[in-house]
């Protein structure tokens, strides 16, 4: 077992710290996660396929992934705008706005959930203005998109922001000297520099939306086939003591998350190479 091979180094404590790291990682993360995979393998292939392709389950995938996609797109547009405004322009209160961007990370999801549901309910602060126009947000799929946009926003801003900071103005000066208009510079010089980070932020926001539970269930309405997200369906199955069903669906979700994680890692590698 020379998997973790140590190279020459005078600092002490390598064996102990690495040993503890691997031990703690195994008991908290790896073994519990493998339980999910092993439990799923207890099902026959036929059972597994029937469970994960049942109409109600498929409808929940469509809602979850569809809403996460829309939310990630909204966040990509506004996230880039916010990152740009925060780095490039000066305005009063910029520091406070910058700190507030991380609110969705810091605010517990249940609090976000009940608050969004209240604001966007037909007599809420925002909902009362939308209601007369026939726009219903709370208790519809639109509410799911809204909650996912809220929790995904910091991912795009915080991946794009450092890249905007790193852009050297010489590039823009050169483009201007060569006769480019500001619009051409933005589209042909700035945007290509930002695009890897925008894609990464998009993927992070999408991945977060797909797994999200707490902020969504209060505003979604949770109607089977219409506004029921996959994580909620897992909980419903658990409450009905359908452990096999819950496990099978969870396994599909887990595989999707790992695929997304892999894609995000590759994107980040690509953008790092791109930046050099």
């Amino acid at each position: 077992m020379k998997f973790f091979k140590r190279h020459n180094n005078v600092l002490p404590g390598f064996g102990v710290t690495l040993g503890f790291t691997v031990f703690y990682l195994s008991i908290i993360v790896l073994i519990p996660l493998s339980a999910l995979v092993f439990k799923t393998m207890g099902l026959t292939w036929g059972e597994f396929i029937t469970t994960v392709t049942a109409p109600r389950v498929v409808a929940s995938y469509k809602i979850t992934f569809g809403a996460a996609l829309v939310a990630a797109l909204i966040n990509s547009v506004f996230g880039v705008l916010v990152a740009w405004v925060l780095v490039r322009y000066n305005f009063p209160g910029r520091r406070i706005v910058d700190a507030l961007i991380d609110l969705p990370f810091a605010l517990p999801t249940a609090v976000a959930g009940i608050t969004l549901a209240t604001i966007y309910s037909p007599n809420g602060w925002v909902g009362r203005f939308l209601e007369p126009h026939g726009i219903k947000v709370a208790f519809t799929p639109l509410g799911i998109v809204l909650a996912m946009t809220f929790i995904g926003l910091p991912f795009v801003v915080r991946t794009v922001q450092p890249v905007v900071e790193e852009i050297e103005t010489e590039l823009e000066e050169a483009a201007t000297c060569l006769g480019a208009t500001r619009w051409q510079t933005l589209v042909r010089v700035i945007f290509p520099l930002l695009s890897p980070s925008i894609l990464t932020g998009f993927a992070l926001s999408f991945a977060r939306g797909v797994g999200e539970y707490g902020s969504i269930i209060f505003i979604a309405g949770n109607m089977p086939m219409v506004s029921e997200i996959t994580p909620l369906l897992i909980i419903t199955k658990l409450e009905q003591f359908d452990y096999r069903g819950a496990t099978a669906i969870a396994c599909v979700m887990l595989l999707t998350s790992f695929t997304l994680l892999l894609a995000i890692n590759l994107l980040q590698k690509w953008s790092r190479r791109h930046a050099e």
Partner: protein
Amino acid sequence: MSAPIHTVHSSKSPTGRAQTEPPVVRRLLIAVALIFLALFLALPLAAVFSQAFEKGLTVYLAALKEADTLSSIKLTLITAAVTVPLNLFFGVTAAWAIAKFNFTGKNLLITLIDLPFSVSPVISGLIYVLIFGLQGWIGPWLQEHDIKIVFAVPGIILATIFVTFPFVARELIPLMEAQGKEEEEAALVLGATGLQTFFRVTLPNVKWGIIYGVILCNARAMGEFGAVSVVSGHIRGMTNTVPLHVEILYNEYNYTAAFAVASLLAFLALITLMVKSVAEWKVRQQLENN
């Protein structure tokens, strides 16, 4: 990232003529960004406090003093008090091994440490039910010996440790890598022991990084909902954390009380953001001084 680039960059005027948009466009973009943020971030934050105090301070305080609320606060504090030190210890240990040494499989290890962030909270709770639940791997054995893990406090703590697992480690690893190991090597050559080196050289250098990781870990530990909801069993006054108590009050149409309890968590979020901003600034400063 070398220091000179930073100085060039910070001296950059944001209003250089050819490098910026016309004032009208600039103001328009700022306005659109701020309206979007006001709608999505500021409004919800204001709504929490406004709803909480809707019926006055007396009703607000009464909701907080209720016995079930107090016991949920106690459970949340216990959970954070167990979770944060464990993950802090792990984070520092992992960062030492990963940042100060070279070994095969390092990137894989970093990816695995980050894993809990990409798992849905619901699944983070489910996996513990699959192991410790009645139909789980060691559930029957636990029942024979009358040990309760799932639908009890230990389950809540385990699920919370899982979801907050990466916070300290992922902040410390890049920071300790950036600081290199020359200072530690010098301390060792001068005759310091390993632990002395760590406490007197490494720790002061990464202090703000640790504070940053701990404050985020704590915020998530106190605010986690999905994972805890799966393993809790929702027994009022027994296995209810603050976020779960908010849900129960809300579902009972007791909105004022729900928002009163939620305002505690929102307040915690604001403190978290403040400490985080300061820590971020200090870390940046320290890296630039290096």
